[in-house]
């Protein structure tokens, strides 16, 4: 059929990993192109002139930017393993929680790794994650019996990123005490047959976080 799928990504980025998870869950073959964020290629700037960021998916020469937009595109183009539900109301709910994770949870979690007013930042992050946990209820995944749109967008929380940052920085956010259901979900997430092959190499991630967030000598 001559399908050409390329992905401009960064090995440690939860944003580009989301796209990889979606492609792998749907069994789509793609060419991975690692981007040097300190030295962006002309090709990346050509495909994402507005934001100049990764991830960018290029399908048969046509670029799509913004990870959540890319996820919806992938879901509409490759029908196997649907990520979003069929019902319009359920779809609206999934989009709502994906947006909540993206615009509220992630910035709050990054703040916890900063040095300003850390205690307050951790309190706020825990409150936000509690709301997310309430949405999960007793489901195995946000998507129900299997991984869905919201689970993938929550990869930073479910994967090793948050766990490793909180250990290196020395904060307690996602713990079995605080957020037992979310912890259980994150275990299911990292053990999922496809997801576990698509997380960044853990030792490399820890080393990166140590440099970026660890105590300075």
């Amino acid at each position: 059929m001559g399908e050409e799928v390329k992905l401009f990504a960064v090995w440690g980025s939860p944003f580009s990993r989301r796209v990889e998870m979606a492609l792998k869950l749907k069994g789509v073959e793609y060419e991975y192109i690692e981007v040097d964020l300190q030295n962006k290629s002309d090709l990346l700037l050509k495909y994402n002139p507005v934001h100049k960021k990764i991830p960018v998916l290029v399908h048969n020469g046509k670029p799509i930017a913004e990870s959540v937009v890319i996820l919806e595109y992938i879901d509409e183009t490759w029908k196997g393993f649907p990520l979003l539900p069929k019902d319009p109301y359920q779809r609206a709910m999934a989009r709502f929680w994906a947006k909540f994770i993206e615009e509220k949870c992630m910035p709050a979690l990054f703040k916890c790794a900063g040095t300003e007013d850390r205690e307050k930042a951790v309190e706020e992050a825990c409150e936000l994650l509690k709301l997310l946990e309430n949405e999960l209820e007793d489901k195995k995944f946000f998507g129900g019996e299997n991984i869905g749109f919201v689970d993938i967008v929550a990869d930073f929380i479910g994967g090793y990123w948050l766990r490793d940052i909180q250990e290196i920085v020395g904060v307690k956010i996602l713990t079995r005490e605080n957020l037992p259901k979310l912890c259980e979900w994150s275990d299911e997430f990292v053990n999922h047959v496809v997801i576990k092959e698509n997380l960044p190499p853990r030792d490399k991630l820890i080393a990166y976080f140590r440099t970026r967030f660890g105590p300075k000598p």
Partner: protein
Amino acid sequence: MASDEVVLLDFWPSPFGMRVRIALAEKGVKYEYKNQDLWNKSPLLLQTNPVHKKIPVLIHNGKPVCESLIVLQYIDEVWNHKAPLLPSDPYLRSQAKFWADFVDKKIYVLGWKTWSTKGEELEAAKKEFIDCIKLLEVELGDKPFFGGETLGIVDVSLIPLYSWFSVYEKFGNLSIEPECPVFVAWAKRCLEKESVTKSLPDQDKVCDYALWRRKVLGYE
């Protein structure tokens, strides 16, 4: 469809609320409009949007949908018999969603800064605001609307800004038309649509509201 109950929790100067009004009008959906007091939030608002406690909230047969762009997509999927807000081709859909997201991330934030900041921050915001509008002009190209011949999700997301133009120009000391004539021409075409004119409040009323907010927030 006959027994559909649609309620919109809104606040008259909100551009996010205006988006939903336009979409419902485009689709010919009858609904009950409930203006909210944002400084004394109703139990209904707190119950239907407990996470953000914000408007707009669309309540369809008792089930609430929040976040204006998500509401627009919901409206498009449920009332899919007329006036599609998104094209059917997945690539074109992705581009429309990208630009609607751009409008949210850039235009609204920068527009807000033009009436609520001062000095260097204001000057930087003004410049970036105009640059972003110019990017949208390039995206529009020769088309009458971002949606092509009819209003699409980008048009519906962006046109509410127009009711706030007099605010940006007055408090930000901006002059939009000379810098962005293509954009203003597009806005005027949108204003020829009944769904838009009946959803946008008068620019003077919006200005009075902004003046009051500036005083309350201590910007004056």
